[in-house]
């Protein structure tokens, strides 16, 4: 009787433990988080293995200093007394002050320059926003540019979160592939041209197997552009190897899927 009770209790305990452990894995789509997640990008950069992280940190520190300065300028009355009473701030200064104060009121808002971007990215990878500006020499409205920037950041964050890689790890991988992927420029921007490539990786980041998930689409008539894009994506992955993968957690990332989608880039 006692033995059965022990069996029963231990079995139940195991089942509860299994349920607790397995439940998070069953959640495939996490809750769509608000843009506040983008703050994570800065904090995680302390640990990241991306070479441009120190630069990002410098920018962050600079911003923090600016914030502090605003406080010190406003708080002590002595500082105010030093100013000439008849001195009217120049319009530029006024603008700057306004911006800084706004920042203090809303600490979650991130300056556009904080967005993580490597030297490599800056030189070799053309930002969608830059393309928009370059393609349109008539200068389209800056609000549109802001919109697309925001959209991109959110999608990246969401994707990394769902993937199981940390933001830094996903960013490192993404940044590496950005550099290797030469986007064919003749592609139509209004087609659905998502290429999904499944990779089986070795521990050193080299590829042991690669597979285009919709490979049958490549040989369909009228899918010439899809074929060109798929080939370019596959070329990028091969050129890039060994991929910049985390040093630990091989089981987590030995199978990985890369979704190549140039639509935002081509639209500009």
């Amino acid at each position, binding site marked *: 009787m006692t033995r059965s009770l022990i069996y029963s209790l231990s079995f139940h305990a195991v089942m509860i433990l299994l349920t607790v452990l397995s439940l998070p*894995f069953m959640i495939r789509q996490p809750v769509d988080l608000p843009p506040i997640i983008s703050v994570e990008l800065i904090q995680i950069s302390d640990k990241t293995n991306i070479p441009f992280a120190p630069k990002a940190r410098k920018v962050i520190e600079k911003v923090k200093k600016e914030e502090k300065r605003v406080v010190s300028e406003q708080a002590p009355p002595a500082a105010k007394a030093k100013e000439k009473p008849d001195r009217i701030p120049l319009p530029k200064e006024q603008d700057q002050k306004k911006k800084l104060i706004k920042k203090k009121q809303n600490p979650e808002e991130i300056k556009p320059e904080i967005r993580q971007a490597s030297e490599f990215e800056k030189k070799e*990878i053309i930002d969608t926003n830059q393309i928009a500006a370059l*393609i349109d020499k008539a200068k389209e409205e800056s609000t549109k540019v802001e919109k697309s920037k925001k959209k991109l950041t959110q999608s*990246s964050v969401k994707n990394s979160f*769902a993937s199981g890689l940390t933001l830094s790890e996903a960013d490192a991988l993404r940044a590496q592939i950005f550099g290797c992927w030469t986007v064919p*420029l003749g592609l139509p921007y209004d087609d659905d041209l998502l290429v999904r490539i499944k990779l089986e990786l070795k521990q050193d980041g080299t590829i042991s197997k690669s597979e285009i998930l919709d490979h049958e689409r490549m040989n369909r008539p009228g899918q010439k552009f899809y074929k060109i894009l798929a080939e370019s994506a596959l070329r990028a992955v091969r050129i890039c190897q060994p991929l910049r993968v985390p040093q630990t957690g091989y089981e987590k*990332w030995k199978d990985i899927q890369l979704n*190549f989608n140039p639509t935002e880039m081509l639209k500009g």
Partner: protein
Amino acid sequence: MKKIFYILTLFLFKFNIAYSLIEVDITRGNLDPLPIAVSPLHVDPQSNNYQDVKTKELGELISSIVEKNFRSTGLFNPLNKDAFVQKPDIAHLKPRFEDWRLITAQALVTGKLLIKDEKLKIEFRLWDVAANKEMIALAFTTTPSNWRRVAHIISDKIYERLTGETGYFDTRIIYVSETGPRTQRIKKLAIMDQDGENTKYLTLGNELVLTPRFNPTNQLVTYLSYFRNLPRVYLLDIETGIQEVVGNFPGMTFAPRFSPDGKKIIMSFAEDGNSDIYTMDLESRLVERITEDSSIDTSPSYSPDGKYITFNSDRSGLQQIYIMKSDGSGVKRISFGDGLYGTPVWSPRGDLIAFTKVRGGKFYIGVMRSDGSGERLLTENFYQEAPSWSPNGRLLVFYRETKSGKKGEGFTARLWSIDITGYNERELKTETDASDPSWSSLLSK
């Protein structure tokens, strides 16, 4: 019992540790030109000599034309041949991909040629260096004197395979060749390959000529010339050299262009200070009036499907761009920006209309969608106009006048091309000053 329990527990643990597939979105890449190695074509030692064709050097010559074509697109970066480590004949049979990867090549072109029995046989292969596989392999047989065209055709095939767009290398450009001072300018019709080679003059320069345009088969050219001191639209057969005046109009006709099927010519006819758009059927010679307005309607251009016409008109006060159905109904203004808009030309893809814009004393070449949205100005200068599309709708060719001489007393007119993204602006090589270019369709379809 115990064992079964342990095994079950272990199995469940193992099952639950399986991770979900990691997905990473790649939404950006680089727009650097694709590094491509164009190996010289291997010349078969059994090749005979043929007239003035330099057989031994032909492999080098063809590969250098292919290279030059690729470099001009701005999309490819042909690698320096000095870095090539594999001989052309071996590379053509089986490239050592690791060697080509070392010099950062992503694509490799190899080939060989043989001249025998007065025939030139060329074969070429395009290799994906990263994937270690062949992407395309083709062979051509032609007369040896056609070797330049073969080089252009090879370029077109590779371009299409790597970008998904049709090429534009096996094409010609017709333009007005200009010589002499501004007051006594001699203007002749000239035709050349798109890379500036093989220039031929089609008229003698006795009469002023303007705005030449190809028909879809590239056999006929319509242009404006003077007949009894009156500008009239002409038709010229390039092969036979036969010219004729188009239609029996009492006044001046100008700005001619062929319809997409090549059966009609659309042009402007001016009378008493008013000009309207007319078409003339080339078979039946029937003339049809398309617009009927008291304003100046000119520079008509058909959409590629022939259903619509774009033109410029000053009916709203200032010169702007309009579109209408091909029967003249449903006229709609599409340009609303500051300045004057003129010379609209519908893209062969059908999505964009190229135009010249004049604003603040400067001339711009730009594009907009056919509904007037998405206006983009690609290039700006003191004087430039007359855009014409490459057959794949990727590039525009136009002409630009710039001041020359120490004090800026003279001027030169040159042809320029620009990508629709606003990149890769470059001057086209011409023997003389040049204006009013028109790009042919692909010669080999």
